[in-house]
C-alpha cells in the first residue's frame, strides 16, 4: 500500500452522477459526505441527518433504487450512480400514497424522520415487497422519537393491505 493510492482527506475528485434524474457534475473533496453534498451543495434538504452513524435512517436516499444512508457514504462513492431524494419523488404515485397515508394516520409528529421513512418504503415497494410485515421489518431500521411507531404501523398496514382496517 502506498500513500499515492489514498488521497488526502481534503483532496478533490470529480463526481459525475444523476440526482433526481438530472445529470450532476461536481468537484468535491473526497472526504465530503453524500449527505452534505445533497443538502448543502445541491440544496436538497428533505433528507435529514440525525446520527451521522448510519443508525437512525433520517438521511435515507435511493442509490440505483436501493435505500442507502447518505450520512455514511462519501459523495465520491456515488460517482456513476443514480441518486434519488424525496424531492425527486414528487410525481411518484406510490410516494404520494405514502405521504397521504402518513398524514391520515398521524404517523409523523416532528417530521424529522419522515423523509427517510418514505424513501425506505419506496425502495421496499420497488423491490417487490408484498407484505406489510416485510415492509415493517424494513422500516425497523428507521428511528422515530416522537410517534411511538403505532401510527406508522397503521399507515404501512393500510398501504400494503388496501381495503382492510389496519387496526
Amino acid at each position, binding site marked *: 500500500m502506498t500513500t499515492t493510492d489514498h488521497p488526502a482527506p481534503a483532496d478533490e475528485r470529480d463526481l459525475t452522477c444523476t440526482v433526481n434524474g438530472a445529470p450532476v457534475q461536481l468537484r468535491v*473533496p473526497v472526504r465530503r459526505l453524500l449527505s452534505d453534498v445533497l443538502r448543502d451543495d445541491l440544496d436538497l434538504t428533505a433528507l435529514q441527518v440525525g446520527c451521522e452513524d448510519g*443508525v437512525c435512517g433520517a438521511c435515507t436516499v435511493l442509490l440505483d433504487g436501493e435505500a442507502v444512508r447518505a450520512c455514511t457514504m462519501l459523495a465520491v462513492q456515488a460517482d456513476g450512480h443514480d441518486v434519488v431524494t424525496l424531492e425527486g419523488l*414528487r410525481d411518484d404515485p406510490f410516494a404520494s400514497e405514502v405521504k397521504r397515508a*402518513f398524514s391520515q394516520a398521524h404517523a409523523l409528529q416532528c417530521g424529522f424522520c419522515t423523509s427517510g421513512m418514505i424513501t425506505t418504503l419506496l425502495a421496499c415497494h420497488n423491490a417487490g415487497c408484498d407484505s406489510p410485515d416485510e415492509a415493517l421489518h424494513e422500516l425497523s431500521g428507521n428511528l422515530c422519537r416522537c410517534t411511538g411507531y403505532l*401510527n406508522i404501523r397503521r399507515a404501512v398496514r393500510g398501504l400494503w393491505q388496501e381495503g382492510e382496517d389496519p387496526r
Partner: protein
Amino acid sequence: MSLLDSTHTEQTSARVPGGIGEPVARREDLRLVEGQSAYLGDLRFPGLAEAVFVRSPHAHARITAISADRARALPGVLAVVTGAELAEWVSPWRIAPDIAGLHPMSAPPLATGTVRFHGDPVAIVVARDRYLAEDAAELVEVTYEPLPAALDLSESLAGTAPLVDETLPSNVLCDQSHVNGNPAEVLATAAHVLRISFSQQRQAHAPLEPRGCVAVWDRAGRRLTVHTGTQVPAPYRTAIAGRLGVPEHQVRVVCPDVGGSFGQKLVAYREDAAVAALARRLGHPVRWREDRRENLVSALHAREDEVDLEVAFTAEGVVRAVRARLRSDFGAYAYFPGNYMLQVIGMMIPGPYRFQDFEYDLKVLLSNKCPAGPYRAPMAMCTWVTEGMMDAVARAVGKDPVEVRRLNLLEESELPYQSAAGQVYTDITPTRTFERGIEAFGYERERAEQARERAEGRLVGIGVASVIEPTTYGSAFYKLAGIPGSGHEAALVRIAPTGVVSVSTGLMGTGQGYETMLAQVVADGLGVPPETVDVLLGDTDVPPYGMGSRGSRGATAGGGVALLAARDLRDKILRIAAHRLDTEPAELSVADGRIVRAGEPAGLTVRDIAAIAYLDPVSLPPGVEPGLEVLRAFDPPPMTFSNSVHLCRAEVLPDTGTVRISRYVVAEDAGQLINPMLAEGQLHGALALGIAGTLQEHVVYSPAGLNLTDSFRDYPFLALDEMVERLELVHCGTPNQRIPGGMKGMSEGGVMGGIAALTLAVQDALGVPVDRLPLTGERICLLLDRTNNPDR
C-alpha cells in the same frame, strides 16, 4: 383502537366543523411529508460560517494551558475563542433563586480553569466550512491535569467525593423536606412497616434533530437574530440578551421547524451564547449544528433518581403513612433550579391515594457528569414508586394488587381533595377511570389466564399503575416552589380588514401539532372555518410574551388562552353586527364565518364586520374601538391534573431475559381533547419513551467518568419492532372546570404509567422485587438467577 366513552366525553355546546374535539389531519404535515420543512440546517444564509466546540475529554481536570495558534493559522478559520476570552463578552449562566436549602450556582460561558464533565465545552472554533472547523478544533491544544471525579452519589452524600463546584461547601446542591401530619409516629408504632428502594438510570432526551442555532448580527440595525428550535422563544430571548448584555429589543428569536425536543430545547445553552457572541464579534452569520455525539455527551441528561421509602399499613392493606428519601444526580452545572425536577417526584408520590401522614426529604447532588434537566415527564418515577409500594403492600397482606388499590383509592365524591403533599385535586376521576381500565383489560380473566400460563412454567406478569399527571404549572406553583418565572400564557387573535384570521401565542411546537390545534381552538371560539385561521408561532417579533411549551401546557395554557381571546373577539363582532342589524348581541351568533340570527344567515359575514371595524369606524356602536384584535393572558391554576390507569401484561423469556409485552390497555381522563388523534399520538410517543426507559435506554459512564454511550449504536433508542404491538385506549374525558375549554394536558402521563406498569408486570413475572432500572436482558437474567436460587 380507541373506544370512546361517550358517557364521559364532554360535548362542546355547538360543534364547529374542524373545531374542538375533531380528529382533523395536521396542517403541518403538508410541508413535512413533502420535504419542504425548514429545520435549522435547511435555512440558507449568505456568508454563513460554521462553529464547532472543543470539548473536554476528561470528567474532571484542570486546564493548565491552551494553545490555539495552529488552529488559527489554518486557512479559512475565522476565530478560535477560549473560555477565558469569551468570559469578557458573555456573562455566566447563573441560577440563584431565593429558595431555602438551595445553593446558588454559576456556569462560565465556556469552561475556564477546570472542566467538570466529559464534553464540557472549552473553546469555540469558527470557520468558513464545517469540515475546516472540525480540522481546526483538532489543532487546538489543551493541556489538562486530570482530577479525581465525583461520580458516586453515596460518596457525595458522605462528603468523601471530590468537590464539583469549588464555590460550594459540598456536592449537595439542594436539601429540602416536606412533612404532613405525623408520619414519624405512625411509622414508629405501626404493626406493619415495609422498606422499599427504587433506582432509575440516567437517560438522554435524544431528539432526532440535535441542538443548534444560527446567529446573525445586523450591524446597520444593531440587531441580533437567533434562529433556533426552542420550546420557549420569549424566555430564550430574555436569557440570550441578558447573557450578551444586549438590550432585549435588539434581539429577535426565530424558530424554524423543530425536530423534537422532549425538554432538551428549553434553555439558551452556553453554546448558544458563545455562537451569538461570535456572530456579533465577527459580523458573519454563524451556525452551530451539534452532532449526535455532542448531543448524547453534553446536551442534557435526566432521570438519575433514587427513592428509598418506608410505608406503614394495616393488616387489611390500607396505607397509613409514607416516608420517602429522594436523591438525584444533577450533573456538573445547574441549568435549572436544583429542586425543579425532584420536588415534583416528592409532590406526586401520594398519587391518587388517601393517606395523609407523609414526609419526604430530597437531596440534589452535583457530579462530574453532564448537567441534568427536565425530560418529558421529569417526575415519571413517582408512579413506579407509588404503585410499586401498593404492590409490596398487597404482597405483604396476601391480597390482590387491585384489591389493595381499591382500599386506598380516592373516590370522586371526596374531591376536591388536598393530597398529603398539599396538591389540591379537582376534576379528576381516579376510581371511575381505574374501574374503566380494569373492565377494559378484563382483569379477572387475565389473572386466571396468567395462573394457567404460569402453571405451564411461563413467566407471565401483570402490572397495574394509576397515574395522576400534574400538568400546566401555573404561576402560583412557581411562586410556592421559589422558582422565578411565570406559568401564564398569552394569545393575540386578530382579524385583518379582509377577514383573514390569525392567532399567535408564546407556544412553540416541536412536533405536537400546535398549528393545527390552535387553529381548531380559534375556529371554535370565533365560529369560523379552521382553514381560514393562520397560526403564527416562534418569532419573538410576532406573538405576545408567553412562557412557551413545557409541562404539558400547550392545550391547557396555550389552547385555553387562545379560546379566551377568540371568544372575546367573537363578542366584539356580535356587538358590531347587532348595532348594524338593530338587534341585541345575544340574538346573534357566528357560524362558518357568517352572522346567524335564529339559525338563519343574517346577511352579514365576519369579513363584512372586519371591513366596518377597520374601514368605516364611524359606523361602529358607541364605545367600540376600531379594529378587530384581542390580546389575552391567562394564568392557569397552580396545578392541573389528568389521570389514567395503565394495565400491562408481559412475558419474560428466560433464556435471553427478553421482555415481550403481550397486552397494553390505557384508560385516560385528559378532559376535553382538542384533537383526539393528536392526543392519542402524544400518548403513543410518551408510552414509547416509558417502555424504552424501562427496558433499555441508559447513559453509561465509565469508572473514570467518560460517557460510553455517545452514539446511537451505544444508546439504544426504541425501534419500530420493539414497540408494543397494539395499544387499547379508553377515553374517559371529564371536563376541567378551571381551564377554558375543559382541557387537562396529557403528554407526559404515558411515560409515568409506562415505566410503572411495565416494571411491575416484569416484577410480577419474575416474582422478585425489581429495585433498579433498566430491565435489560442481562439484568433480568441476574434477577432470574435470584428467583431460581433464593439463597445465593
